[in-house]
């Protein structure tokens, strides 16, 4: 065993990161770039919640965008028709998405892994079709437009009308920090180890007195809760929602973030979220071929980094002079 990395290194790194994140909008001039940063935060939060099911209990669901969509549409409908405040939409969006996930987990968790993936894909399709066809509720392809900007009013102390991009940035940052805290609380505790034991060997976990279905339901439901709330944020940021935004392309994007970032490892997922939202935008220097180049980069990436970027980063960090064992605790792989 090598010596653990000293605490002050962590403290210094975290403080620098935190200050950097707080100060970021002061440095960024371009509105477009700030928009991309906000989207990065959103995708990272979604990927972290997705990783609860995929990376920790090994449930590859393809329905994550549907929970995002349920939250987004609920918030859009409530705020445009009844004028409900942001916090209500945010909480309700999460709870309703979680409720849907909880109810559906009963039939779906009976299926084995491959069928579960395709079953949830069917769910994703149905949610999208409801968004397209139930025009009385969702306005179909006309999209719900003019969703009001969020206003956080909590008594006389806090009354914050979110209006500029910088405001949205801080709101997103706050949400992201809550999601990071929630996910790390869930995954680094005793509960997190239970979840990973199910991913590694379900039979063995059962034999040790763990009820896999209970924990799978938990991971799936909490993931949907976060996705629904993030959806509510998104719709009050973009101010409109269309059926095309609840698409299978978001599933693809999330799968890439997870598996090329580092599935089941928080640092890897955050890294993946940042890199794979930014790379397609950076490639705008070659606008026509950018998605083709992106696909080729992914192909090269997965061949040379089958464990994701986090695997490479771990190797590099070990070579640093003050390197300890801090990064190696989650090295058990998915089989």
């Amino acid at each position, binding site marked *: 065993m090598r010596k653990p990395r000293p605490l002050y290194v962590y403290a210094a790194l975290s403080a620098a990161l935190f200050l950097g994140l707080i100060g970021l909008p002061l440095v960024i001039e371009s509105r477009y770039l700030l928009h991309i940063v906000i989207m990065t935060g959103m995708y990272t939060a979604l990927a972290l919640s997705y990783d609860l099911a995929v990376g920790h209990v090994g449930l590859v669901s393809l329905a994550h965008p549907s929970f995002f969509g349920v939250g987004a549409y609920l918030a859009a409908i409530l705020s445009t028709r009844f004028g409900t405040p942001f916090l209500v939409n945010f909480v309700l969006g999460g709870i309703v998405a979680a409720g849907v996930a909880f109810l559906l987990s009963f039939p779906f968790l009976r*299926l084995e892994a491959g069928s579960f993936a395709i079953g949830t894909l069917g769910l994703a399709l149905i949610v999208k079709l409801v968004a397209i066809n139930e025009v009385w509720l969702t306005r179909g392809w006309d999209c719900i437009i003019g969703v009001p900007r969020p206003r956080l009013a909590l008594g006389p102390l806090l009354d914050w009308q979110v209006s500029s991009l910088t405001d949205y940035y801080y709101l997103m940052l706050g949400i992201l920090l809550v999601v990071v805290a929630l996910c790390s609380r869930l995954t680094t505790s005793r509960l997190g180890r239970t979840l990973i034991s199910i991913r590694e060997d379900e039979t063995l976990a059962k034999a040790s007195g763990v009820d896999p279905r209970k924990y799978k339901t938990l991971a799936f439901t909490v993931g949907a809760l976060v996705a629904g709330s993030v959806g509510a944020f998104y719709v009050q940021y973009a101010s409109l929602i269309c059926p095309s935004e609840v698409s299978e392309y978001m599933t*693809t994007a999330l*799968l890439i973030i997870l598996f090329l970032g580092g599935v089941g490892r928080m640092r890897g997922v955050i890294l993946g979220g940042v890199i794979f939202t930014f790379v397609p935008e950076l490639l705008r220097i070659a606008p026509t*071929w950018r998605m083709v180049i992106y696909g080729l980069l*992914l192909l090269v990436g997965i061949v040379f980094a089958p464990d994701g970027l986090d695997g490479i980063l771990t190797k590099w960090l070990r070579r640093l002079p003050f390197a300890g064992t801090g990064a190696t605790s989650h090295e058990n792989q998915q089989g």
Partner: protein
Amino acid sequence: MDIFIEQLLNGLTLGAMYASIAAGQALIFGVARLINFAHGDMFMVGAYVFFLAFSVAGLPYPVAVIVTVVVMFFFGAFFDRVIVRPIIDKRWHVHMIATLAASIVLYNSFTIIFGTTPKEVPTTYRKVILEFAGFQMCLQRVIVLAVTLLSFCALYLFLQKTKTGKAMKAMSQNRAACAVVGIDIRRMSTLTFAISVGLMGLSSGLVAPLMNIHPTMGLQLTFKAFAAVIMGGLGQVNGAIAGALILGLTEALAAGYLGADYKDAIGFAMMVLVLLWRPQGLFGGRKVGI
């Protein structure tokens, strides 16, 4: 009753198309143990190859179909050599990301080359209406059904009777043992891809005249093929064909009676019902291998 028979025939054509895609997917999964997320995009490639051969180059219909099959046969082999071979020994998530990336490359480059406007490739057979025992059907659909059926018979005979086909079946049962008795595993994998994609090329040549082709049609078809494969029992070619027919018929009947809005959803709902009844799929668990 008329609607019923009409939609039944539509469903059979749709099912035949899904079956060609799903059978290839099941064959690849059985022999190479790889789930190909770019499978539907290859159907799209086949449809554009057919478009080039038939509408642009002006070849006669049967020749254009044969050209499509040959081109797609080699495209499948190429795909195996360039994309699958470097990753085949890695874990399943590597397979998933690599084939997803291939799918992104395919549909985006085709969008650049051909644009997003859907293309039609109408043949004269589409206008020829056959009457049979009181109901009507266009000749193109008859061709789709007959040729697809023939191709499945050929595939069945190939897998049952020829030495290469038997080697493929053996590989789907036990890869390591095949290597021990001297079967060239890599060559078999390339051949499997070539045959699966060639079969799909045939299907795209047959079905493309009945539909609009566009670069982003692939992902939907990949997912439909998954649904059929899972419904039939993972890695079972016959099961996948049965699953695809069920899917096609359900979608067509749903479209006929309930309107087209929810036909895709009802197809998937059917699949979920089948899986709740038999989680291992219709034909799963009875035998090992394809």
